[in-house]
């Protein structure tokens, strides 16, 4: 999240909004957003509706969810999808930024 915060203005410059979806409840989101001063939009999904819709994997033995990132263009099409194979398997912001057409 800190890396995303640092590069947020680059996403904004490319006409891109960031939505962060997670399984925590609204109170946890609010606390984390305040603590980290995050500029993008947080969407609590405690019933995991969207997480399931997009197929985020849960690995119980690895104690949690695996990260996933989707880039959706202005026409509503999925241009990039990355499903992490481990907790640390997250594409770099530069990789994502290079794919965005403003």
């Amino acid at each position, binding site marked *: 999240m800190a890396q995303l915060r640092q590069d947020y203005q680059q996403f904004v410059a490319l006409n891109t*909004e960031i939505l962060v*979806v997670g399984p925590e409840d609204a109170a946890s989101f609010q606390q984390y957003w305040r603590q980290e001063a995050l500029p993008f939009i947080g969407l609590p999904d405690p019933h995991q509706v969207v997480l399931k819709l997009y*197929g985020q994997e849960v690995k119980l033995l690895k104690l949690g969810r695996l990260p996933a*990132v*989707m*880039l*959706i263009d202005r026409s509503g099409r999925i241009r990039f999808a990355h499903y*992490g194979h481990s907790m640390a398997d997250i594409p770099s912001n530069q990789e994502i930024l290079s794919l965005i057409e403003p």
Partner: protein
Amino acid sequence: MAKVALNTPAPNFTLPDLHGNPVSLFDYLDRKNVLVVFNRGFF
């Protein structure tokens, strides 16, 4: 679990934001690109 396919229409969703205001993916149609980050958990 099904995963989404590239270059296909993204399924819409609507969730309340931190302030309880509904946010839909399709709010951004024709206006902005959207990066959806599925967080692995804060803790």
